[in-house]
Structures are given as structure tokens and as C-alpha cells.
């Protein structure tokens, strides 16, 4: 795979009341051509700062960003030739202009003539189901429609990399799903590279090929979706008992159980190193005269994986 974007030790400092704060702290990752790459993290993790550094909208103190091997620090405009972005939802559009006026304007300020983008504009309007809305003032469109217009604008200049900051923020379930389909379509049919920042697990789970998880400015995980899922979803079992754990059983099972156990606990979530450990556990439960009502193997949702990685990074115990 061809590398198209590379971050090397990116560090962004902000001056605060308590001195310098590292909003982005030594972040490194690469994005390959044609992939959908996720930048995931809780609010305030440093996602938007990272995206803005890539766009050249935020000066960074340390590290380097290379877009198609062009250093953004040394030659910002050369790097920007390959990038377009939708920042903070859909704030990249003029709400008092129509859909086609917006598309024409953004193509124009990027040095493209009206004639040269005519076909591409027709294609994008069709692809985003905006043909009927082309002459409507953006302010009169729904939030989801505005978001589609914003993404269409980022594609009108036909650049290689599209940066999307929270593309599904504030969208309803249906529109969010439609947006995920659109993103996959852009990557597949247009061959575009998409870097999206979000805290919407569903978007990441359904669209991203690889991702980096950041928290408090630092990289917590950086891998393919598949590998990150494998990390956690293999050996988690749910056991439901007919009565509370005895003191002996509680004591012996303690190291398997990551969630807090209280006196009333009859449902347990166990994290095992090997499925064979189940034999010992079941035998213990039998000795203690505890009846087994249910035993399931759990598949962790990506949200749980994410939360665990964040907790792990913060030094907390992982909960299952």
C-alpha cells in the first residue's frame, strides 16, 4: 500500500492558566492511499487539533507532517494541494448560498473554472442525491443534507485526501447510516483516502480500515479494526448463578473478575487466559453448591474495547 500521509511525533502545545498543555503529544501514524482511517477519542482527546495541524490551520511545536512526502511545515501550500476537509460538522459552507453556488464558489477559489467542474458537479449532486436540491439555499436544508453538501464540497476539487471532523455529529440514526454508506462509496468508487475523526463507534466500526485511538493527546492504540477487536473479544464469559457467591468462591474467582462484585452479584463477567480455565471455575461453583443458570461467551462491542483502552491508558483497571 502506498503511504499518502505521515505524522511523526506531532506535538501541539497550548498555553493555559496552569502553564503549557500538551493537546497533541508525540502522535505518529501513517495513512495509506485509498483507506478510511479513523481518529478516535473522547472529547478533548486532541482529534480536532491533530486534523487542524494536518490542514495547516494550526501551527505545531514539534514533529512533522508529510502529505505525499511534502512537509507541511516547510511547504504548506504544496501539501494543501492534496487535501480538502470538512471541519466541525458542516461549517465549511455558506448557508445563504444555494448548493450549486457553494460548489461553484469552492471550486473557483481553488482555481478551477465553472466549465471544468460541470461534469464532476453533476456527478456529485447525483451521488449525494442532491440534484433536486441544487438550487435551494443551504440554510433551508436539513442538517443531514447540509452535511452531504459539506462533503460534496470537499470532493468538488478532486483532491486525494479528505479530512472529516465528526462527519456524523448531530445526525439522526437514518442519516448517520446514510453518511456511513456515502463514506464507503467515496473510498471505494472515487479511490479517495479518508481520515475521519469521531467519537461515534458505529462510524468507526462500519467504515474504518485502520484507526488510531488517542486520549489526552497521546496514542493509546494504533492498528487495524480487526486486530483491535481481536485484542478483547476472545475470552470473555458471562455466568449467571442461582444465588450469590459464597465467600470462598468470591475469593477464588476474584482474579478472573474485573468488574466490581457486590454482595448481590449473581451475574459475573469473567476474563480468562484460556477456555480450559472454565473447568476449574465450574468445578468450584459446583463444590460451593452454586447453580448455573447461564453461561455465554461475549463479543465485545467496539465501544467496550474503546473504553477499556482509554481506561488502560489512564492507569485504571480494565472492566469487562
Amino acid at each position, binding site marked *: 500500500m502506498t503511504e499518502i500521509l505521515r505524522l511523526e511525533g506531532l506535538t501541539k502545545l*497550548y498555553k493555559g492558566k496552569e502553564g503549557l498543555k500538551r493537546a497533541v503529544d508525540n502522535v505518529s501514524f501513517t495513512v495509506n492511499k485509498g483507506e478510511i482511517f479513523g481518529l478516535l477519542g473522547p472529547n478533548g482527546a486532541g482529534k480536532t487539533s491533530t486534523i487542524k495541524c494536518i490542514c495547516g*490551520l494550526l501551527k505545531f511545536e514539534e514533529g512533522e507532517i508529510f502529505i505525499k512526502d511534502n512537509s507541511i511545515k516547510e511547504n504548506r501550500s504544496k501539501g494543501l494541494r492534496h487535501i480538502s476537509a470538512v471541519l466541525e460538522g458542516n461549517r*465549511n459552507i455558506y448557508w445563504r448560498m444555494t448548493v450549486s453556488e457553494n460548489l461553484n464558489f469552492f471550486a473557483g477559489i*481553488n482555481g478551477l473554472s465553472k466549465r471544468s467542474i460541470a461534469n464532476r458537479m453533476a456527478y456529485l449532486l447525483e451521488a449525494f442525491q442532491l440534484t433536486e436540491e441544487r438550487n435551494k439555499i443551504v440554510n433551508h436544508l436539513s442538517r443531514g443534507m447540509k452535511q452531504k453538501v459539506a462533503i460534496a464540497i470537499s470532493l468538488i476539487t478532486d483532491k486525494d485526501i479528505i479530512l472529516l471532523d465528526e462527519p456524523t455529529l448531530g445526525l439522526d440514526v437514518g442519516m448517520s447510516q446514510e453518511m456511513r454508506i456515502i463514506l464507503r462509496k467515496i473510498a471505494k468508487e472515487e479511490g479517495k483516502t479518508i481520515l475521519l475523526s469521531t467519537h461515534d463507534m458505529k462510524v468507526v466500526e462500519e467504515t474504518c480500515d485502520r484507526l488510531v485511538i488517542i486520549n489526552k493527546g497521546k496514542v493509546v492504540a494504533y492498528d487495524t479494526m480487526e486486530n483491535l477487536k481481536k485484542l478483547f473479544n476472545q475470552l470473555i464469559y458471562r455466568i449467571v448463578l442461582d444465588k450469590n457467591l459464597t465467600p470462598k468462591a468470591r475469593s477464588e474467582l476474584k482474579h478472573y473478575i474485573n468488574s466490581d462484585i457486590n454482595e448481590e452479584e449473581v451475574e459475573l463477567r469473567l476474563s480468562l487466559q484460556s477456555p480450559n480455565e472454565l473447568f476449574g471455575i465450574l468445578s468450584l461453583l459446583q463444590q460451593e453448591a452454586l447453580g448455573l443458570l447461564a453461561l455465554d461467551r461475549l463479543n465485545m462491542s467496539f465501544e467496550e474495547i474503546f473504553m477499556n483502552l482509554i481506561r488502560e491508558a489512564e492507569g485504571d483497571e480494565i472492566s469487562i
Partner: protein
Amino acid sequence: MKYLYSFLAMCMKEWIEWKRYWFNSIIGLIIYMIVFISIFTGAQYIGQNNFALGESMEGFLIGYALWFMAMGAMSDTANSIVDEARKGTLEQLYMTEIPFTWLLISKNIISTLIYIVIFFLIINVQMLFTGISLNIDAISIFITLFIGLFSLYGIGLVLAGIGLVFKKVQSLLGATQFILIGIMIIPSVEAPLVKLLPFTYTRHMIMSIMREGKGLLGFSSVDYFYLVGISTLYLALGLAAYRIAEAQSLKKGMLGQY
């Protein structure tokens, strides 16, 4: 060609926005005319013909129209940048291959043309209303104003830069109205420091064209040196100040905030 297309795109946007907000523009002009008529009628009533915005009624008429146009030109740059920052579109303009400075200059050129058209419009209506006759040498006035207005864009850029960093500039813009009134009533440009004030020399030359019937060929090279030099100086100062503010804004990530 890229620069030409971006210029045309800026033209298109200005035209679209004017079309959408025509009511606001017309109301602005009507209010201007009402204020003008009130001052003019008041002046006639008290029998004074030599007050405030110029040495004579002709001077007042030109000075008042110039002041209106200058106010618009100066606040236009600051307001448009601050407005783009508030809407979030400023960041998009910064992400184009075409330098933002070019987009800004394009916008100023378009605004200049619009303001000159407005100037001609209001000066003609004023002449019609007052019965005062002035020399409307369109080419001389156009060229002088076109060059002279860039000194005010320089000031507008300083204000826009302040707006980018400190956000609220409305009170500052309000204060500049009074500074501009001061510039419009300066009777002579003989004092060296007065010559260096923004737009003062432009006003002086416009007065000469419209009141004394001077044409472009009637001005000396020194006059042109001051006209072009002062506009270039203030535009350069404005761009430099804006660059400093822009660097601060890019460091703090404030381009998209207001």
C-alpha cells in the same frame, strides 16, 4: 489562470450576497440620504454655508459622500473576515492552494468597484437634491478613488487582525467612524504629517477634481507619489499587521472561532 478563476469566484460570491441582501443595502442608502437631507436642510435653515464636513456646501456634499464610502470600505474588510471566522468558512478559505492574501485582495478590488459605483450614485442624487453642480469627471474620480481606497483597506486589515485575535471589534469600528470624520474635515494637506494620514490625500485630490475641475493630467507627479505611496504604505502596514495576527491565530487555533 488559477488566480483569475479564484478572482471570478470571489466576484460571483459578492454579487450573490449583494442580491440576497439587497434590501439591507438599499435601506443603508436610504438612511444615508435621510441623514444627508436632514443635515443639508438644517444647514440651510440656520443660514450657514460653511460648516463641519468641508469649507463649503460643495465640500460638505463631497466630504459626506466620501465619508460614507470610506466607512463602508474600511469596515468591509474587518467585518467580512470576522464574519467568515464566525461562520467557520474562514478556515476553508485558508485551506485553498490560492493564498488567502490573494482572495482578500480580490475581495477588496470587487468591493472598491462597488463602493465607487455607490459613490457616483449618491453624489448624483445629492446634486439633484441640492441643485449644486459638481465636476463629475468619471475617469479621474474612478482612478483616484480606486487607488486611494486601498489605504483604508490597510486600516481594515489591521482591524481584522485585531478581530482575529481579540474577537470583538465593533466598538473599535465605531471609533474609527469619528477618526474618518476628522480626516474628511481636514481643510488642507499642506502639513507633512497630514499628508501621511490614510485617505487624506485622496480626499484632497477628489475635492480638486470635483470642485476645481482638475483632471488626472492636472495633478503633479508629487500628487501621484502621495496618492500611490500612502495607499501602498497603509496596505503594506495592514497586511503586515494582519500577518502577525494571523500567525497568532494559527498558533492558538483561533481562525474558526469567534
